């Protein structure tokens, strides 16, 4: 006798429910526990919500919640092969790119890598102070023998952030020019941004082999692409209407308007988006070590798995240093853009 028997009795579905009832089906733990206490009087305080499981108690034909999860799983597995046929070749270049960059970064000796990074920092920020700071941080990382892991993390971030910008900026531009596209895209972006990072990994693990770099590449890109899209869209929409009108009045084509007016004026916002994107790639690359992404995250994971407190904390500090470096350099570049076009 279950709480919601009356629904099915009332609807005259009792016969349908009991038809083919064997009672030999697999029992869940909850079923077993429920069996023990079945003699109790039902009171209003223990009234269960009419959930799938509660209704199943009343009518065996009603699906249980585990049928739902099973259904989702079966559905995904059924689609998997088809998705793979499409997605595998499409995303293969990502694997090559990640592999290639990782190999390149690892093969480059530190005494070449350091000057190259210093040059990049200098050109982005035009600040010798920042170059000195970055060099000090990198030297510290190398000194505590985290150099190899740090460069792996950097390589992955370079590739993923680059691809985020490559795809994110055009998507943002398209959104800014089409209200309907914007309305359609924003819920997707909201979802990507609110999904817990671990959830990205679940379907990807089934789709791709765990040994392939594109698995974590896709997870990072999906997670980190959101801010650059949002801020590109916002930046272009915020461009001074008067300037746009002036551009129109001089007979600019849409193309001239986009490249000579809108993108340059939206650049501070786009740069802020790139900064966010890089920081989010860093956050995700640590989590992605769960699915074989190399880098500092692997050490953090080792610290958790083997309870190696020191390893975990030192590599955690390494991640913080990397984050500071990336943030300072992109912010310095952003400030330079801002200084050039304040109103």
């Amino acid at each position, binding site marked *: 006798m279950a709480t919601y028997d009356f629904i099915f009795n009332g609807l005259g579905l009792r016969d349908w429910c009991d038809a083919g009832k064997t009672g030999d089906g697999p029992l869940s733990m909850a079923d077993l526990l429920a069996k023990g206490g079945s003699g109790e009087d039902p009171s209003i305080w223990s009234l269960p919500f009419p959930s799938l499981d509660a209704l199943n108690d009343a009518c065996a034909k009603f699906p249980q919640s585990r049928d739902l999860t099973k259904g989702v799983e079966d559905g995904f597995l059924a689609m998997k092969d088809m998705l793979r046929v499409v997605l595998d070749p499409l995303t293969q270049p990502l694997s090559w790119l990640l592999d290639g960059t990782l190999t390149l970064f690892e093969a480059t000796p530190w005494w070449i890598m350091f000057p190259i990074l210093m040059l990049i920092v200098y050109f982005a920020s035009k600040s010798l102070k920042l170059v000195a700071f970055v060099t000090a941080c990198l030297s510290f990382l190398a000194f505590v023998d985290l150099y190899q892991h740090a460069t792996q993390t950097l390589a992955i971030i370079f590739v993923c952030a680059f691809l985020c910008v490559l795809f994110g900026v055009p998507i943002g531009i398209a959104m800014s020019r089409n209200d309907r596209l914007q309305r359609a895209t924003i819920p997707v972006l909201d979802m990507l941004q609110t999904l817990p990072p671990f959830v990205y990994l679940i379907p990807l693990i089934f789709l791709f082999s765990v040994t392939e770099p594109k698995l974590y590449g896709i997870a990072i890109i999906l997670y980190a692409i959101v801010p650059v899209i949002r801020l590109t869209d916002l930046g272009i929409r915020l461009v001074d209407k*008067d*300037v746009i009108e*002036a551009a129109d009045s001089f*007979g600019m084509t849409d193309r001239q308007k986009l490249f000579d007016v809108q993108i*340059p004026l939206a650049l501070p916002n786009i740069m802020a988006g790139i900064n966010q994107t890089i920081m989010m790639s860093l956050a995700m690359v640590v989590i992605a070590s769960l699915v074989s992404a190399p880098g500092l995250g692997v050490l953090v994971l080792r610290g958790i798995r083997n309870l190696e407190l020191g390893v975990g904390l030192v590599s955690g500090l390494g991640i913080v240093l990397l984050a500071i470096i990336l943030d300072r350099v992109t912010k310095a570049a952003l400030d330079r853009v801002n200084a050039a076009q304040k109103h």
Partner: protein
Amino acid sequence: MTDKIKISIRNLYKIFGARPEAALEHVLSGTSKADLLGQHQHVLGLKDINVDMREGEITVIMGLSGSGKSTLIRHLNRLIEPTSGEVEVDGENVLTYGEEQLRNLRREVMSMVFQKFALLPHRTVAENAGTTLDVRGVAKRDYLIEADKWLDRVGLHGFGDHYPHQLSGGMQQRVGIARALTSNSPIMLMDEAFSALDPLIRTDMQDLLLELQTELHKTIVFITHDLDEALKLADHLVILKDGYVVQQGEPQHILLNPNDPYIEDFVSDINRARVLRVRSIMTPLNGNPVPTNTQGEVGHDETLESLIARSGGEITHSFVVTQDGTPVGTLDMTSLVKALVPRTASEDSARQY
């Protein structure tokens, strides 16, 4: 100055709202602006505008905010599309233009100066001034030469490598004017170009514009809400109110013959002695002999103020008015003093246009 009509606006209507064509029917059948908004939720922007702008003249369109003057100027280069009517430039109806023709019109024939300057903050002053040529595909090397020439002309020599944010408002608007001049277009549209500047700078800029105009003879359409500015610049003055033309004509004529209480209110506040000119109030000779009992000669374009200064306030004096050295009329100080008193719109001053 020729008498050729450069821009001609015919029966122009603009209605803002969801279904302007349907609302136009109501307007044509006599619904007022307030009723159109109250009953049909449409805003009447412009109503039956007919203006001819002559080549080489400064046509000033004046009105308070909300009178539709900025809407009107944006119809000339079709930044705003009209609901009905025609805009002819050099005899061609620009409303029939396709995208390509319209772009050419905006690039080659009209250039615009904006109230808020609308310079590109990421480009240098010289690059900004050259934007109008850059848009046409002129090489940077070439357009910078042209831009520098016009920057010099508007008094910004040596500022070419600065960025707009390093300049004051007045200087930024000089860049805006240089940008419009660089395009070498025969028509200049100036949308409240000097309204954002402080009064002294504004006077400077007005003088600059008049000085440039004596040389360049462009067809200028100038929007303002300031009557003093309008009277100073205008060859032809159009006064807008609530989207329709209240009165248009030669500024001196409007000042002496306001045909509407609205305009009377406007003109009653200004310094008439400084604005009115001798030619507007003199008695023409009409073949009569030149009187001999006068206190001297006076140019026909002088202001009454300068004449008062010359006569030392003596109201019994009278003068011979000359144009290019030939006597054309007489003026006695009594009629001058009378002209200084604003008169109310008289019954006989019916609309001239």
